[in-house]
């Protein structure tokens, strides 16, 4: 199914009509196709469309509405509605003139410079931006297939999986065990599994106080570890048990019928299992030859053009750029650098120095949030950290509560920056 949400474009007859329709209205505008309407792709599309000189921008995204993975842990804890996490594409189409095509990109032909859509149409481009997000590594955990995901949700791509995990947590009896399996680096949202443990603990504390949470970690340390463990001791003493890789070994298989997870020599049974699998760049990027042997996509650190294919740029979780964390904020920051680089190449706007930055607000409890701030610089062709600051352990409850209010304000401004 394909629909166009750009108002005033009469040609709903099919994507094959689109190039002609565009040529009639804006003959000279260079064409940019953006695949993926998340934090990275939608930001690239919007910033390209805001240029003074015309660019013909098409955004390809199968979903009619996007659910943000960031802040979805608040939904799991019953602190935010699911609807409050979703955004549509009408503003990008109506206010910015972006052609939004609700279809999936089936294949990229870098030689012919075209994108083939699932519906069969072919979109030509002068520059292509691929922002496909992540996929899970096939076969990394025996037995964890599509059917197993319906029993042991990952809830690491927000949407139906998020709803499923919430319904399982609601159905879990008091005194039950909730297991979160956290993956090895690199993965989407480094503080995410631990924030999830924190906020589910807040839900349990109120509704199922005898319940326990175990984190089976593929790592021996994790991001903001001291802040999290301090928060767990203060808010949920005895409820959250973190088991590092050196104690439990690597997860090898799951048993769906038994609701259990196995490492080399231990078995963990639980009432609810949230298995966050090992990750890599989404399939389209790999099929198009945009990923290297690591499974992630190498890019120029200033322009986000692929180092493997000319005229194709990538942003967001699928790319590998030094030690930049895979966060929506980083994706949005990369997207702006990418959009300015493409505008400079296609319509001659003055090059802009990339400003690469990350902030994450992380909830330890409904009234206790921390943040980190990281600036990046490009030196000798590599992206490195210029400065990093994190919330301190000795902050007052009032400061932490202020960070909660700031975080909610940030979500509002940030999603407007992405979706208009």
């Amino acid at each position, binding site marked *: 199914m394909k629909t166009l949400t750009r108002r005033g474009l009469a040609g709903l007859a099919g994507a094959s009509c689109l190039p002609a329709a565009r040529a009639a209205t804006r003959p000279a505008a260079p064409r940019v196709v953006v695949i993926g309407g998340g934090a990275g792709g939608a930001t690239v599309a919007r910033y390209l469309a805001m240029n003074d000189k015309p660019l013909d921008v098409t955004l390809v995204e199968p979903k009619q509405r996007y659910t943000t993975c960031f802040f979805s842990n608040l939904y799991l804890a019953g602190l935010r509605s699911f609807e409050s996490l979703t955004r549509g594409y009408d503003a990008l189409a109506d206010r910015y003139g972006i052609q939004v095509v609700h279809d999936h990109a089936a294949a990229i032909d870098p030689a012919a410079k075209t994108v083939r859509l699932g519906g069969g149409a072919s979109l030509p481009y002068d520059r292509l931006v691929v922002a496909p997000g992540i996929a899970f590594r096939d076969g990394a955990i025996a037995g964890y297939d599509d059917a197993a995901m319906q029993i042991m949700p990952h809830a690491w791509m927000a949407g139906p999986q998020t709803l499923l995990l919430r319904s399982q947590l609601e159905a879990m009896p008091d005194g039950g065990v909730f297991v979160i399996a956290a993956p090895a680096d690199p993965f989407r949202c480094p503080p995410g599994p631990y924030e999830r443990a924190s906020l589910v603990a807040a839900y349990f504390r109120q509704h199922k106080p005898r319940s326990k949470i175990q984190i089976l970690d593929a790592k021996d340390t994790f991001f903001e570890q001291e802040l999290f463990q301090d928060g767990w001791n203060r808010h949920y003493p005895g409820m959250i048990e973190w088991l590092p890789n050196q104690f439990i070994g690597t997860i090898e298989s799951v048993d769906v019928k038994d609701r259990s997870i196995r490492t080399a020599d231990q078995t963990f049974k639980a009432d609810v299992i949230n298995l966050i699998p090992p990750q890599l760049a989404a399939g389209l990027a790999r099929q198009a030859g945009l990923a290297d042997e690591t499974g992630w996509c190498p890019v120029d650190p200033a322009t986000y053009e692929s180092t493997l294919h000319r005229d194709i740029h990538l942003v967001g979780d699928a790319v590998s750029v030094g030690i930049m964390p895979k966060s929506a904020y980083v994706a949005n920051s990369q997207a702006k650098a990418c959009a300015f680089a493409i505008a400079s190449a296609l319509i001659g706007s003055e090059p802009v120095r990339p400003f690469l930055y990350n902030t994450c607000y992380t909830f330890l409890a409904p009234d206790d949030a921390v943040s980190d701030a990281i600036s990046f610089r490009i030196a000798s062709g590599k992206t490195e950290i210029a400065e990093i600051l994190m919330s301190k352990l000795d902050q007052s409850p009032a400061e932490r509560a202020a960070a909660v209010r700031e975080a909610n304000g*940030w979500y509002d401004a940030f999603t407007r*920056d992405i979706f208009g």
Partner: protein
Amino acid sequence: MKRHRIALALVLAGMIVQPCAADQGRGLAAACASCHRTDGHDTVIPSIAGLDESRIVHLMLAYRSADQGSQIMHVVAGALSPEEIAAVAHYVAGHPSGTRQP
């Protein structure tokens, strides 16, 4: 006059300013919009549209040097040169709410 005050602020801060191109201001100001609304609506985090130019420069220089206050803004301001702060301030001040940004 406003220009003079900004120049004075930066000279007092021990910095010499060569204003950079307008596009630099626009490009760097794009980073502000990741957290700040640009339509005049505050969300705990204040909207920055149309703020007074010299006030933005003063605030950014204070964030840059301060140990106290917002660590997020400290890291942002520390990543910008004085010339870039001047360019961002000029751009943001010239785009009050309701105008298309950045």
